[in-house]
């Protein structure tokens, strides 16, 4: 029973969501909107589990004074401070402590993490773009042409490069994306079907 009921819920949930797509009637629209809302709400609840897990993970470290426990303490402090600021000091208004911490602490770190990509994209390009084989050469040439073709200096160096780079993006690039997209579509469809039909049930724990 403990297995059958979840499998039944999955089946019904999946089939209802597929059928509603074909029914424009209002009832079907409401089910659709309702399910999306419910998913969001459940997502809100489980954040409690997430925070619980995070807190246990770090308090354990602090308690046992494991290596790096000081940093765990910093994480816990950050969490508690931010939560208190948000829940008791004026909520999410832009001039209140919660949003101030968000603007001056969370945002800059976020933007900087994002900007690390500029460095990593360079080091990845340097290491990976070697003409080791025919395929690697294709990768390398396409990357260089587009990279140069996208900036004004590219046209100064060799003006046709802009045209070639646009052509690469519009044709071979788009074509391959389409093939991958179709493959992904089919793979995802069959996996979704296996889930709905209960053929794929490893997410319930165990393969048997």
């Amino acid at each position: 029973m403990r297995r059958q009921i979840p499998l039944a819920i999955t089946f019904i949930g999946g089939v209802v969501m597929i059928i509603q797509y074909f029914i424009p009637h209002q009832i079907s629209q409401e089910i659709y909107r309702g399910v999306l809302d419910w998913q969001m709400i459940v997502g809100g609840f489980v954040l409690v589990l997430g925070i619980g897990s995070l807190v246990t993970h770090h308090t354990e470290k602090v308690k046992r004074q494991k290596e790096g426990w000081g940093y765990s303490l910093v994480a816990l402090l950050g969490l508690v401070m931010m939560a208190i600021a948000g829940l008791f000091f004026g909520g999410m208004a832009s001039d209140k402590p919660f949003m101030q911490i968000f603007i001056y602490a969370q945002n800059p770190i976020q933007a900087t993490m994002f900007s690390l990509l500029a460095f990593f994209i360079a080091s990845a390009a340097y290491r990976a773009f070697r003409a080791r084989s025919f395929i690697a050469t294709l990768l390398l040439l396409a990357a260089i042409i587009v990279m140069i073709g996208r900036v004004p200096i590219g046209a100064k160096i060799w003006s046709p490069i802009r045209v070639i780079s646009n052509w690469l993006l519009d044709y071979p690039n788009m074509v391959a994306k389409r093939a991958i997209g179709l493959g992904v579509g089919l793979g995802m469809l069959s996996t979704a079907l296996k889930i709905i039909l209960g053929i794929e049930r490893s997410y319930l724990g165990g393969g048997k």
Partner: protein
Amino acid sequence: MGFFRGMLNLDRRIIFILIAGAVVVPLFIPFHLKMHPTPASQGLYNAVEKLPEGSTVIISGEYDPGTAPEIQPMMIGALKHCFRKGIKVILMGLWPQGPALEGQALQEVFKEKEFKEMNLQYGKDYVNLGYKAGGAVVIQSMGTSIPATFPTDMAGTPIEKLPLMKGIRNFNDITFVLDFSAGDPGTPAWVMFAHDRFHVPMAAGCTAVSAPMLYPYLQTKQLSGLLGGLKGAADYEWLTKSSGTGIRYMPSQSIAHLVIVIFIIIGNIAFFVVRKGEKR
């Protein structure tokens, strides 16, 4: 030989330093680069340029501080362009942080003498309606009634008290929509509802990464123009003959690209030299 072997196993930190240098140095020693605006950028410029004085434009911002370096220059460019042409601007956003960043863009614009002297007034020449959650649903509901969707502006002022909003009922009273977006919800939602359903002409700006996904809308003329990434922003500044971070950042952008390409070329030379040496 030793040099090339060294190059093959180059410490990545050397690459990091050179990239940082390529970005920072041109910020201090700017040089002049001629822009070649893409047809997509030109399209957006032409569309705004053609709007008659006194028309009302919605500018929507779907971006956050992370993506602001790319989108903010477009926003500033659009505000300047509209103000110069005497167009009334309604700002809003479908991302929580969009309208706040739009506010910052306004501040930037008014720092310049030209716009300070125009003495534009909040509520009369421009308003900021703020953020509304719901993505595409918000746009749909604006099609029915803008005052019902946004009963107050960002600061909480009832919309009836804003002279600009008098006589604005729905999209029929809006001449044009400019959407600057860094992801979802964003331009596709605007195209689907504001353009396809309520027939408002529109153009958009987006991050460089998402531009290829929006190109199809240009081909089908659902968008009159599209600014893609910092290059798009620079194009727009070039076309409107105003200075801004787009053009200003372009040298850094160009040099950084060159540095990466030079590294790749050196890497390949080293690779071939070393492989030849090993074959012997």
